[in-house]
């Protein structure tokens, strides 16, 4: 039997989302290895938009400015989320040749990930991939984004373990919504993972599911962060107050 490809696993807790995104992009673009990064919650509430997200369309900017909620534009595509301690992040960074059965395009990667998570949620709720979201039934609990380069790809997910209802008010209803959302408002559209599975169980089962496809080797964050990393130019950035103000003016 062929040896399973190696995947290095970094387990984090409460790491700031910007630091996580910087780490992910650097690993995607400069590392030759496969990586899984799990960040169990992030320290402070942040809004995270996709690479071409437009604040005026996606955010209630006046509220965001008033409450000084940081807004990040990340390096990958996809939509907008507000993340906090109730969010669990799981990221896969793969060499396309190490997962050669997965075509390096958005849909096949999305399908591959859904099969992996179907093993995680086996016997728990009615897990399904709906368009680009992970859902129990028709309620979304996980959003996805990807970035595909010449030889590698990243697929990262923010899982809604729990959320603050008030935080949702910072986000506008997106112009483009998945068809399965129908006309539901936000609270009727999403659900919390905590109603289905203990937090540590989810992380353990995710690692177990990974081990079915990769030879998983746990690594510390310190081992991958080094002074030379500061030379890497990150694409994910926090929008300045001025940028948000200008966006508000249209």
């Amino acid at each position, binding site marked *: 039997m062929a040896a399973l490809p190696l995947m290095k696993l970094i387990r984090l807790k409460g790491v700031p989302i910007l630091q996580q995104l910087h780490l992910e992009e650097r690993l995607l673009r400069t590392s030759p290895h496969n990586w899984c990064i799990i960040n169990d919650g992030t320290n402070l509430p942040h809004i995270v938009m996709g690479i071409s997200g437009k604040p005026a*369309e996606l955010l209630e900017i006046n509220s965001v400015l008033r409450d000084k909620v940081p807004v990040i534009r990340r390096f990958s595509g996809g939509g907008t989320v507000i993340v906090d301690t109730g969010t669990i992040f799981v990221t896969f960074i793969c060499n396309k040749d190490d997962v050669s059965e997965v075509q390096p395009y958005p849909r096949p990667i999305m399908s591959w990930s859904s099969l992996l998570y179907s093993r995680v949620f086996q016997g728990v709720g009615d897990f399904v991939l709906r368009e680009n979201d992970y859902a129990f039934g028709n309620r979304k609990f996980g959003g996805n984004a990807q970035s595909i380069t010449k030889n590698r790809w990243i697929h990262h997910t923010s899982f809604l373990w729990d959320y603050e209802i008030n935080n949702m008010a910072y986000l506008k209803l997106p112009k483009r919504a998945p068809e399965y959302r129908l006309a539901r408002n936000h609270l009727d559209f999403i659900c919390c993972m905590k109603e289905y599975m203990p937090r540590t169980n989810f992380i353990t089962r995710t690692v177990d599911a990974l081990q079915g496809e990769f030879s998983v080797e746990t690594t510390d964050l310190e081992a991958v962060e080094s002074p030379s990393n500061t030379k890497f130019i990150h694409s994910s950035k926090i929008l300045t107050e001025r940028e948000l103000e200008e966006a508000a003016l249209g």
Partner: protein
Amino acid sequence: MLSRRIFRTRPWSSAGWRGLVHDRTAAKSSPPVTGTARQSWLFSARDFKSMPSCSVHKFYEAKNPYGIQGCSFSSQPMVEVRVDGIVEIPLAQTGEGIAECELLKWFVQPGDKIDEFQPLCEVQSDKATIEITSRYKGEVSEILHVPGDIVKVGETLLKLFVSELSVPAEVGDTMEPDNDTCTSDIQETAKGGVLSTPAVRNIAKMYNINLQDVSGTGKDGRVLKEDVLKYAASKGLIGDIPSPITGDPVKQKSEREDIHQDDYEDKTYPLRGFHRAMVKTMTAAAKIPHFYFVEEINCDALVDLKAFFQKHSDPDVKHTSLPILIKSLSMALKKYPLLNSRFSEESNEVTLRGSHNIGIAMATPSGLVVPNIKKVQSLSILEITKELSRLRDLAMANKLSQDDISGGTITLSNIGSIGGKFGSPLINAPEVAIIAIGQLQKLPRYDDKGNVYPAAVTTVNIAADHRVLDGATVAYFCKEWKSFIEKPELYMLHMR
């Protein structure tokens, strides 16, 4: 005449994403893979002038271990139309149901030599950013879109100059015979035992030559253009084979005919990139009620100051008049900030902008672009000179960043550097003013004593949004600006 910031990212329209999202579950993720659907996809692909290339080409049905029937794309080459070695590279299909992508950034520029599989650009489709790589080794000839453009699948992204015309012989060996009707041309050629390109076949047809009669000297016996011409010459169909230096008389004749024919034929081409952006911004500008204020400025002192800077500062820095005009403009804006404002029609509000981010219109090989120098009020003339040079270099290389071209508060167009007395510019919305500077001319003028002397004179035309600015404000502003240009010693009076 002038465009607004043309890199402003376009607003998404939900219509643009029609067909992108499908309700699929892990159990049934497949696109239709019936024969009919596959053929219809292939026929639509054939309609494109050049087949999908870059990193996605051939379409085949795949069943992967996950039990999901899916579409996937290998990098097998397909038929492409090449004219004079120029290959049009379209945006290839990046996923089922994806009809268009947003172009995020280029990694190459015209003139760059590129290798096979080298990343060309990054696009975004729905949830993913995707690097598009080149299938060819060649040179970038023309880039047809700018970041922010929505590009439809199949639309040409860029053109490459590929020096060798070839049809890969292995295509016929590796493709499934029932899989790709688009490559029937290649297969027919291969079947006939003669490998050649469409261009070579056209030449043979022109001389009524059967390619099977021609001995091919290319790879794997491929018939090249020279082979056909040599054969034609040997049959007396044409004169001596032309040398590259003297040119082909037959070709010259046909070229002359083509030229004559071209003189009278209409030519239609789609507007792309900067030019397409200009259409959009000028259309928006047309809604603004413009009024124009024209003034003549004596630039004798400006010319002397420029010469002084050149003589007494770093010889590696080339000084021009423009940075001095930019700095003096900023000083005038301090007194008349309304010209550095933004108007919101929706809220009926005017916002006085804190920074003087002065945009400079630049004509580049790719079109008109307006990068801006940020916070001019806090920059020295030397710093403005260096920043202007930096922006100009980036503009000519088509490498301006999003930050360089956004956030402008007022625009200056030195159209006189090309020529013309003055122009009537269009405002770069949502700014409220734009200034066009005409050519510097030597004209006879009277001095204070009534004597005629040759003066360096330019005419400026300030276009202003009449919803925000009135004639008096613009006139006072222009008077202030003119005073700084004609009497630069006034800088010292206001310097902090």
